[in-house]
């Protein structure tokens, strides 16, 4: 991994012999990872990790590469979280949180 690019470099401000700083930070290539801010990383309805698309969405095996974006996470007032797709089917039958049986109301939705 010792790739050397052939672009010309600038000598810039390198002439001062007695620097006040030893290094300058030119650039930072940062890498970060995001995940849903959830207590339990598995959706209790479909038993799939909330980071992955829910079972139904996987089954439809969306071919477009952005398909994943549709399958977001939803948090209830009880702080329990599920796939939005799974929960919206669930509340049609029973408007309670499947984990704590409290009345279901949406606190926030992931995006």
């Amino acid at each position, binding site marked *: 991994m010792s790739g*050397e690019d052939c672009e010309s470099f600038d000598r810039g401000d390198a002439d001062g012999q007695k620097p006040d700083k030893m290094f*300058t*930070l*030119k650039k*930072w290539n940062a890498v*970060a990872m995001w995940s849903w801010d959830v207590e339990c990383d598995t959706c209790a309805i479909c038993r799939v990790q909330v980071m992955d698309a829910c079972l139904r969405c996987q089954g439809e095996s969306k071919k477009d590469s952005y398909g994943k974006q549709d399958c977001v996470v939803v948090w209830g007032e009880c702080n329990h979280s599920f796939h939005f797709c799974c929960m919206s089917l669930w509340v049609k039958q029973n408007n309670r949180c499947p984990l704590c049986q409290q009345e279901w109301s949406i606190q926030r939705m*992931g995006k």
Partner: protein
Amino acid sequence: MMSLKPRNVDFQETWANLKETVAGVVALRAVERAVWNTRFSDVYALCVAHPEPLADRLYDETKNFLEEHVGGLLQRVKGSSVLESSDYNDGLLTRYVTAWHEFSQGVAYLNSLYSYLNLQHVKRQKVSDAEIIYGSAATVSCPEHDTRQLEVGELGLLTWERVLVRPLSGALSSRLVAALSAARDSAPDPAAADALRSAVHSAVHVQAFRVRAPLSLYQQLVLEPFLAAATTYHSRRAARLLAEGDVSHFMKHVLDGLEREVSLAQRFLHSSSLESVRACYERACVAAHLPALHADVERLLREASAGGGAARRDDLRRMYALLRPLGGPALRPLVDAAHQQAVRDGLALLDAEHPRDEAHAHFVQAMLSLHSKYSALYGDVFGGAQAFVGALDKACSAVVNRRRAGEACARAPELVARYCDALLRRRAADADADDKLAAAIVVFKYVDDKDVFQKHYARALARRLIHQLSASMEQEEAMINRLKAACGYEFTNKLHRMFTDVAVSADLNAKFQQYLRDNNLSTNTGFFIQVLQAGAWPLGGAMAPLAPPAQLERPARLFEAFYRASFSGRRLAWLHHLCTGELRTRYTARVYHVSASTPQCALLLLFEEADELSAREARDALQLAGEAWARHVRPLLDAGLLTGDADGTLRLNLAFSCKRTRLRLTCAAAPPGQGGGSGSGSASGGSESTHCDDDRKMYLQAALVRIMKQRKVLRHTELIQEVVSQARGSFAPSVAMIKKCIEALIDKQYLERAPGTLDTYSYLA
């Protein structure tokens, strides 16, 4: 003008006239039209005569006449020939053919003269075709003893067969066979050929009116004796050919002989006989000498594949042409030998000398050359027959997945993945990388452990994407699509998501810069970020905690604020071991550009304050854990930027100098499950393969549950088959592993053994 009214007819007188004309017609003598017309009405008159119709009498008399006439012909045909002889040139055949021509023609005319009798009298008694074929008419099979009447034309033919052919059958048969045998060696002159063909076909014609077994006379008289003689002849010839020369010589002449035999059959025999003639030939010449042919198969294949030239290829082509009609068992040794030859050659190619660090290129190129060489050879020689395509596939897959003694798993997945990685990297700059990648798919398809390949590929892809090493994103995407085409959506799902993250990140950076401008903020340094989604990237656990220096703290906080504002419900974690910072040195004579991981940058930045630090101090400041510490410090020491001891005192090397002005520091020996590592085989192999085994068990259990949920009850062998076929896309499961998974599912009460059976499972809802 004739009257149609029935009247009294004197049979004797009318028959006497009629008989004279009949004799003329049968002998093809000229008959005047007026006479013909009169006789025609005579037949009518007899049939409808008053008070008694005389049709039966007319029929019997005609029959007697024909018998007498054919008897005369018999004497003519016999002549002075010795019946026991088989000299086909003694004139008997010629006389027979002449008589046949005359008689068959004459009888055809006679049939029209008697058309009233045929139509009104005979047809009515005729049994239907269905009756003849489906029983109730056992007698019909031997018309001689049938009292039912025939049409006059048929009667004539029957009489010919009974009176003339039967007595002569031995003589005719032996002469015909002798003539045909002679025709095999040298074509007879056209007249003789015509005569021979007519004689042969007369046997067909005579019984052509019969519904049942119309060819029986032909078979008896011509075909069977001919085949018997041919078998002896061919056997003798084949034995002689084999004694004379090698297999090549034998095959060449046998094939020529086959062609001659077929054309002989086409020229002289009935079209239905072609198959049996061919089969008879193949039995005598090929099937009888299979061991001799099979013995040389291996040598021929070896020589043909070693570039033995067109001659060996011709030999193989002939071999295939000879063996193919005999079907599976005869062809099997050839197919097996083709398989073994490709395996042998493939293993030799793989074991050929090659530079160690080019193992991946050597492997893929060896496999490609093996595949193209044998596809071409077998396509050419065996016409691309399915059996040989299959044999080559089996061979390639055996070679690709070969395990050397002591290797826990085949190296193919890793090597192919490395080959792709090398081509997809920026530095490769290979003009035909696209073609090479497409070709690599050919090899990839033979890899059994596709799941292992996927892991290697995903890791390499992650490395390329994060460190921006890809030659081109189009190429990356095209390759992912090729893999998808080969293995399906599920296989490349994560690769796709990784790819998408990169595209999304580019967008995100632009938005972040806009956000900074809008809010009059600055990161004080160049900043580029990639935000990856958890779960899709094979980056593995340990995110080393790190207290970043102030210079990095600011952009990180700014971005976190921006990210929180843009998305909700998301948690962001910094992957410091993957971040790189670019530092410029200002204390050295020349300016050096150093790119290093975040912890390394942080460590270097500590030296702003002091030229010397104790390792303990530095470690505490950075909050780097023990193992990660050594991993990050080592490259700095190796490069000479720092001096001292990783566990003692560290000093900034103020006199640093280096030929290159750009330094890229790597994190040596990444922990397992993370990027890096240039495929060091055995060290990480152990945990790797158990990890893989666990994944496979999960996959198999999921597949088992899916299948059983659908089928409810299934026998053991069928279940195994279904699982194997489902898993084939990503790996080749062992039956032992499937059994273990079934046991596990029974323990977990997904399945149970169906009560009262030994080998059936049922699904528990």
